[in-house]
């Protein structure tokens, strides 16, 4: 558990949380492992989990119905994906595939996360603030990549 807490401290999503708050988050996170080529979820799927990349890389691909599916971004260690399902409860907006053998993800179910936030609203505030900052960073990346 101590190793997981140490690891969670390196993830921006959890920046500002105390060790005790990180311990509670670690208790509701579950490890998943993927190999290159594995699909983690598909565009249009129902989404009820947020994913944190502990090790490895994933590719985010969007099928716009006109033309071939297009790669949107690669995400590496410490990044989160699937967070939109936590916020808007809509279907997955993209397909995410593993592109590195031995990729390790920490996965948190929406229901578990919401329950934890209701019990400790400070966790909810900090994580949601950090999630907004992460979305902002992704938008900045996307804008810069257009030029």
């Amino acid at each position: 558990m101590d190793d997981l807490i140490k690891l969670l401290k390196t993830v921006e999503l959890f920046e500002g949380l105390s060790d005790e708050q990180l311990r509670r988050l670690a208790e509701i996170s579950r490890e998943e492992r993927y190999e290159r080529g594995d699909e983690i979820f598909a565009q249009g799927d129902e989404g009820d989990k947020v994913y944190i990349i502990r090790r490895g890389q994933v590719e985010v691909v969007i099928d716009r119905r006109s033309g071939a599916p297009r790669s949107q971004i690669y995400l590496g260690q410490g990044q989160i994906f699937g967070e939109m399902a936590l916020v808007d409860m809509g279907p997955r907006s993209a397909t995410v595939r593993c592109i590195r053998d031995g990729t390790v993800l920490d996965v948190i179910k929406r229901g578990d996360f919401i329950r934890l936030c209701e019990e400790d609203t400070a966790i909810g505030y900090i994580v949601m603030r950090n999630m907004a900052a992460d979305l902002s960073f992704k938008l900045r990346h996307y804008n810069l990549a257009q030029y």
Partner: protein
Amino acid sequence: MIYKVSYVVIGGEHPGAIMNQTNMPQVGDHVEIGNRVFEITEVHEVMPPRGDFQFLHATVRPLPDGDAEAGGKTEKEKGE
């Protein structure tokens, strides 16, 4: 310090990447994105640091196949 880096590929269709690393990226370093290796050509701060995190933007150019061994080190190599 943890560096959260937005890597943007100059030219072409590659969408780039975002990743965290423990070493400050430097011009000339190599970075692996997917199954390709890129060389960093420019680095600047995107926004002020927060906590233990610093937020950077780096432009990169693809290395020709076979050039991955030349020049700078990747983040993985720096950690070894």
